[in-house]
């Protein structure tokens, strides 16, 4: 198990396949949700978009630990990331890059000003592990 993101994970983060994110509330109630993008920040950090005040956000604010699974269909594998919420950015290069993508989509769907990035939540990578699909998959 590695604590740094390897280079080969970057295309996987960009491949557009929704990732699965699991969080727990402060009292230990789990929640799983699909997230559109895991933004590569550095070998030790990723960013997740904070667009709506939903349960995931509340959970993370109560319990900073999260688990994210990213699928690599071409590589017939999945990557499991153990993350810890560090901070929420509303400006800066990471925020801008994420905001730009969301803004682009919003403008394409007539939702400018509504479908927008409220913050870029920065997570520290605690561990990253690759697991290949079983042969029958």
């Amino acid at each position, binding site marked *: 198990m590695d604590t740094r993101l390897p280079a080969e994970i970057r295309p996987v983060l960009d491949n557009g396949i929704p990732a699965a994110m699991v969080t727990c509330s402060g009292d230990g109630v789990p929640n799983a949700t699909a997230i559109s993008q895991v933004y590569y920040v550095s070998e030790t950090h990723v960013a997740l978009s904070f667009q709506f005040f939903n349960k995931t956000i509340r959970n993370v604010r109560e319990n900073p630990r999260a688990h994210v699974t990213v699928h690599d269909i071409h590589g017939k594998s999945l990557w499991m990331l153990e993350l810890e919420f560090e901070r929420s950015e509303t400006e800066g290069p990471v925020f801008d890059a994420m905001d730009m993508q969301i803004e682009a989509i919003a403008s394409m769907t007539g939702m400018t000003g*509504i479908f927008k990035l409220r913050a870029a939540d920065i997570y520290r990578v605690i561990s990253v592990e690759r697991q290949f699909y079983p042969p029958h998959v």
Partner: protein
Amino acid sequence: MSDAPESSAPSPGSPQEKLARRTKELEVLQRAAENLSSTLDLNEIYASALRTMGELFEFHHSIIVLAEPGGETLRVVASRGYDDQGVGGRVKVGAGVIGLVAERRKALYAGNLGQQRAYAAAQRRQMVEAGRGQELGEAPVPGLADAESQFAIPLLARDELIGVFSIESPVKRTFSPHERGLVSIVANQIAIAIHNAQLFEERTQAAIALQAANASLEVRVAERTAALERELRVAEELLSDARSRVEGPLLGDSGAVRVLREAIAREAPRKEPLLLVGPPGAGKEAVAHAVHAASQRAGAFIFVSCPEAHTASRSASLELSTVDIGPDCAFEARFLASKFELAAGGTLYLDAVHELPDECYPFLEAILRRERVGDDVRVVGSTTQYVGRGGHGSRVDALLRVFSRYRIAVPALADRREDIPAIVGHFVRRLARQLGKSVTGVSPESMARLTAYLWPGNIRELRTVLERAIMTARSSVIEIEEDLLDEGLAVGSYRLVSPLGSGGMGEVWLAKHRLLARPAAVKLIRHDVKHGVPQDQLVRRFQREAQVTAGLRSPHTVQLYDFGVNDTGSFYYVMELLNGFDLHTMITRFGPQPAERVITLLRQACRSLSEAHTHALVHRDIKPANLFVTCLGPEYDYLKVLDFGIVRDERGSDATLLTAQNLVQGTPAFMAPEVVIGEGRIDGRADLYSLACCACFALTGRLLFQASTAAQMLLHHVQTRPAPPSQMTELPVPPDLDALLMMCLEKDPGLRPASAMELDVHLARIKVEQPWTQEQAREWWDTHAPETLGRQ
């Protein structure tokens, strides 16, 4: 056959494969750099950019949009792979991936567009279902509607947004950092190439615009220059016109115009009113201008047409004077007062002052007496009337008397004919320029005609005639036809045809009666011989004189048909027209004549003088030039006595027209002693003395006395006893004739024949070898002057 190993592609991910890929990329980049930097043609740059991106990446949809002026929109300039190329279409800055990239000037890679669109669409549906649809805007979908991945990169040059290069694909596609770097490199090259091309295009357009602006400017400058030149020409013409109005009439070098210039110089410095007297059109306004110019007065020259003052005063209320000249003052006086104000420090010119409205008199008289405002204004009036013509005690007369303390006589053009060529030349140049005609001058014949013309309308008429001739001119040298001058060549019922000659007192013209077509000779008395004599007095004397002359019935006295005063004020006589020679011409041209012929001629002269003397009229100017030898029908050598113009009425003391100034009148070479001395009563015997002088001249071809000056000649007549004619010629002179002529040449009139009749009797008794016959006379005329007989 051996199994040679087949060449196989390097396995993916192997170093060989990476090297081959990098090498290919390098080649593409190198080629792209060459292609992009080798052209300034935007279309070539677009094509090269799209091709390069296609070679580098397996994207088949690419598009180049460029920022438009104003920065709010982008315009598609090139695309590749789309069904609808969309070139020319627009993308709003801030809208979609491309618009966002342009707005933020940052590259954007989106690899999951489909999913994100679906996610956003779901959100949109939820909002619609929640009744928040009004918050939603339109959903522009530039580029591929089903794009899954897109990479858009701003084209920047020197921090300036040129546009956006975008590639997109309907399949999911990822870009490695290396690939993104490649895209950035190419995009930079594209941006620089486009920027350079745009700059080049801008400069080219600027150059073209500058060229067009220059051309436009040149056209405008040319137009403006032409306009200015036109204005200059107009100004020059106005100046020339103004100058010629002033200078034109004063051109020339005749005695009359020299006197006029001297008068202008003399009168200009004064402050007192000045009167300009002269016939209409003679140039009085020009003289007034000249007086003003010579006066060095700083104020303006103000022109007032007195005949129009009444009308003008009612149509120019704004010009009325602010000077208080009294509440009851008439419009005309207020109008005049306003002109005085304008002329402050200058000259007020009252044209035709004798026609000034009565309402103006009190004001003007006050001005002239220096009782009112305007003492810094020089008042110059003009009139065609002499003082006194309006009648003694008349208001006009009183006004003119105030003016005429200082006056300048402006001569008629007919009195300064020598100036006509100069004036004609001046007007021809000016009028030709004004009328746009290429006229350089007047033909010699026309100039002669112009010079001979009487010009009743004076310079004004001359200008009009020239203007009409120039307007109809077909060559550079204009012809003045006679019909243009017809009116000016008329006196009474006669039309002047051509000048026959001129003398000290006037001119003689060939004329024809307008209706009868009878030829006649018209003698015009020059204007300048009348100067200083009141006009009405002149007219009365002239009429009496003409009446006396007309009363002479002798066939040997030239017959007077008519007399009068023409439009220009010249006196004229209309006399019978005679063909032949005066005695002076005959002797000068053909030499001394035989005694018998001279006797015949003298006897005829005696008959004419006898009648005149019987009426107590003395000719006073008997001389060869006034003894005209002609042919009347079958009669040859018919003598007529001419020019009773200076006859003296023996019975009265009233001098005639031409003797009014007590000057010695007559011709020195033929003047009787008593006329020279001016003592005693002059009678017909003075004419006999002169006639004897003429006889000596005819016999000898020489004057009785030889003298270098007129005074010497006159002195000879008084003191010197002449030599008998027989001693002055080789030709035979009968002693009786010799003695008779010496008798007539006695200093004492009492020793001469008592009368012309007596002289005629003495002449008849003289015995000659062969009397002069009509046959001899006819032969002489046939030989020497066949044209006189109507034969050539």
